[in-house]
């Protein structure tokens, strides 16, 4: 019950008594979705070292699948849950949509990952780019989800609370994976795939699992995106979107979870914050990126986690990150 109370509270105001502008709230919510996308992509690009440029495709699958579920079966699920308060019904409906969206994105991740993860480096990047576009064009041609007109009539089920709940879950899941023995195999693959295989690591299995988890989380981010903006169009999921997510993790540091969070927030903060420069906005943004890459090519945090930068006495009980740092 406390959950629903917090939910209601957060959908209107962040802190009791302090009203924030709808614009700022929307930027915060989109930042939260970016965090999920960046942290999940970092699992495959940063920790496993497999350069994928198809993240937007999996996000699209999650977005469309979950929206299809809530639009088509929304009334039935709501009727079946009539005993719950409004917030509870909406929440349950959203969770059902996200579960289907995440699961379908995971299946797509498996189907794309098995053939393409045999490739390395540039080849993998091109193949994932191709698959991402195939997914987008495929969805564009499904009339049941609006086709080229876009998918309308989606209820606003996602809000600040849900987005940040899933952002927190994503961070937890990814950080536990990379700190586990399985996560060590992922980092070993990034460091030297031939040596990892020679040490008995089933590199294909590790890479595919990492890809599936990453895709599922991207699907959830897509589901939240659709239920927040209440409208979906495949133009939101072009490879430009994938590149944006890559920029976020490169800014923050490949192989750093806190870096990805920082990168996601900085990305939207900069692109929005530079709006007053009107037509020079993207010029300035690109200039800042170039400067950052010259000054800190490894990203702001590199392989480190934010907490490890603090003096030791401030971080009692915090595990050292797996990549050393």
């Amino acid at each position, binding site marked *: 019950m406390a959950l629903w109370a917090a939910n209601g509270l957060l959908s209107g105001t962040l802190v009791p008594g302090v009203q924030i502008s709808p614009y700022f709230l929307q930027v915060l919510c989109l930042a939260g979705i970016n965090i999920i996308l960046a942290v999940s992509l970092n699992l495959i690009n940063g920790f496993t070292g497999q350069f994928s440029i198809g993240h937007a495709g999996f996000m699209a699958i999650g977005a469309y699948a979950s929206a299809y579920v809530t639009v088509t079966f929304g009334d039935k699920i709501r009727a079946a849950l009539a005993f719950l308060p409004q917030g509870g019904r909406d929440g349950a409906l959203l969770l059902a949509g996200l579960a289907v969206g995440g699961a379908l994105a995971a299946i797509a991740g498996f189907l794309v990952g098995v053939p393409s993860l045999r490739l390395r480096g540039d080849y993998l990047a091109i193949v994932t780019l191709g698959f991402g576009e195939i997914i987008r064009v495929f969805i564009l041609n499904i009339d049941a989800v609006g086709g080229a007109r876009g998918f309308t009539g989606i209820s606003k089920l996602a809000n600040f609370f849900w987005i940040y709940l899933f952002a927190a879950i994503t961070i937890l*899941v990814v950080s*536990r*994976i990379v*700190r*586990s*023995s*399985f*996560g*060590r*195999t992922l*980092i*070993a693959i990034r*460091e*030297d795939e*031939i*040596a*990892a*295989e*020679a*040490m*008995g*690591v*089933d*590199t294909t299995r590790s890479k595919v*699992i990492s890809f599936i988890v990453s895709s599922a989380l991207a699907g959830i981010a897509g589901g939240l995106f659709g239920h927040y903006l209440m409208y979906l169009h495949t133009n939101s999921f072009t490879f430009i979107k994938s590149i944006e997510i890559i920029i976020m993790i490169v800014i923050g540091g490949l192989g750093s979870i806190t870096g990805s969070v920082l990168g996601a927030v900085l990305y939207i903060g900069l692109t929005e914050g530079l709006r007053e420069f009107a037509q020079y906005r993207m010029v300035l943004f690109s200039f800042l990126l170039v400067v950052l890459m010259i000054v800190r090519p490894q990203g702001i945090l590199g*392989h480190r986690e934010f907490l490890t930068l603090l003096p030791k006495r401030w971080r009692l009980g915090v595990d050292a990150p*797996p*990549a*050393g740092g």
Partner: protein
Amino acid sequence: MALLELSGVTMRFGGLIAVNDVSFQVEPGQLYGLIGPNGAGKTTVFNVITGVYTPTQGVIRLEGESIGGKRTGRITRHGVARTFQNIRLFSDMTVVENVKVAFHCRQAAHLGAAMLRTKTHAAEEDRVDRESRELLKIFHLDRLAEEKARNLPYGSQRRLEIARAMATSPRLLLLDEPAAGMNPQEANELMDLIRWIRDQYGMAILLVEHNMKVVMGICETVHVLDYGSTIAVGPPAKIQKDPKVIEAYLGGA
């Protein structure tokens, strides 16, 4: 039964015959040396045994079971571990984590358990951590456990590679030029270490090495390759006097 048996193994790359009809057997606990001039096919033999290449012809058996063409990871889990001629450590991971990765192949790791941080998972992690550190102690690397592998001096990197290979608990250890780049004292220590590993764990060791002092000092049998073919097999004392071997190394008179 021999631990490792190669019979008639040939490896062709297009028109190049890198390994030509090579046969030999390694018994459990044996120290077997593989030598030959540059380009003789020694590393290719290693790559064929560890599944990096599928042999064009011939059979490779590990305790009677054919392993030719199996994936490297599976062969490692069957009990064959190796080091690399050009060191291949996980350079951005710490020393202890390099070893822990190799333990993974005998570790029951479940993703779900890792995410939920179950007690069995934590206990398993503790065990791997303890055993990894014990192994590092043997190789005098315990003080460097938290150091990144890339920051280690060259000799320590070589030892770490052997330690990492040992962590997979192999029955056959393949060492590809372990003494390369070592000074005479380091090479001597390495010889003691290799002998000690064999005596302590009873594993067979197949060694590729250019340092003749090391090869002749520790190997019981030496196998000489030249242009992919076997030119001599026997105990070190006999090999050193073999005219064919002398010719291969020094050129014909």
